[in-house]
């Protein structure tokens, strides 16, 4: 089974505030609030770490969930975020484009 890589779309604006990750699409100004799992996925989406590794290291360690089930859910979530152009997904590592444009933090470290 091929690996899946995820990377943050540098064209969205993102802020974490009080534990809530908010993202605005640069394309159509739609505002998204990410849940905890989606936030972990967003924060870990560096384009070079495979999704199964992100799930094993960051999601399974934090939630009581079976790795296979967690990976399945994470893939669905990644595809959904990609459909909104929040994440990019690829079966190859995704080279960094620009610095993560628009991202900065308020009141919380990531």
């Amino acid at each position, binding site marked *: 089974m091929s690996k899946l890589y995820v990377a943050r779309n540098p064209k969205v*604006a993102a802020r974490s*505030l*009080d534990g809530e990750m908010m993202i*605005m*699409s*640069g394309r159509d100004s739609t*505002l998204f609030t990410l849940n905890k799992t989606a936030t972990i996925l967003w924060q870990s989406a560096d384009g070079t770490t495979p999704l199964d590794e992100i799930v094993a290291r960051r999601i399974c360690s934090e939630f009581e969930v079976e790795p296979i089930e967690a990976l399945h859910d994470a893939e669905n979530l990644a595809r959904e975020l990609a459909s909104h152009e929040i994440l990019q997904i690829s079966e190859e590592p995704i080279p960094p484009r620009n610095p993560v444009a*628009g991202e900065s933090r308020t009141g919380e470290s990531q």
Partner: protein
Amino acid sequence: MPELTTEVERLSLVIEIGGMPVRVHTSDRGFLNMLQDRYAGFVTSADRAGRAEIDFDIELTPTRFVDPEAGVRVTRRQGRWTIERGDFRAEWEPASRTGWIRQSANPYSIDAVLRIVHTLVLARQGGFLLHSASAIRNGKAFLFAGVSEAGKTTISRLAPPDATLLTDEISYVRKQDVRTQDVRKEDAGYVAYGTPFTGELAKLGENVSAPVAALYLLAKGAENRIDPIPPAVAARSLLANLLFFAEDEELVQATFHSAFEFVSRVPVSRLTFVPDARVWELIG
């Protein structure tokens, strides 16, 4: 042979909102008079205004049927903004500070163009237009945000005589920087300006400004009270009430971050109120 050309009279006036002078030119005296009435208190003589931030030539077209549901479209291409709705088309080039508006002789089209242009200018400066009423009391500005029916007009109507109404519909918020002695820029906060953009009250705001002291998110309820809200809710609510039209990634990002900057500097609370004047005992 006689000359077959006639000189068209070019009439101008300056509409200054939020300290930003916009000069408009038209050849139609009736339209000019209508603008003078519509923007009374915000009109400066074209001669006295000095250099305008933008010069718009207005080309009046015959009135035609317009789809009232037609949405606005704001796009940028090669440094030139195009602003379109069913009832008008406009272009503006920031580099040359010039543009044109093609519309029929009505006050609504140019009003929409002005609102949009101000959002574009403010977005680059950390400011914004907000769906909110605002008023000055004791030298400080208070914003009352909410969607339609949230109570913006009601709270404006209930304002006591010592409050100066800035708007009952769309607040103008500008980020103000000051230069300190060591020439570093330091944020001084936000200033709210009066606007001629009216809601149900149909009363123009006063053309004055004051530092923003608080933003209240309006809610109607059984008693008058102010409750704190989490910063994330404040940011989300502010974003939901911002006026922003541009399909432009750079400005979307700038506006997004401006909202967070604002809630990190200005107290944001929920103001629940019954529709009577005692609510103003909590303000100021």
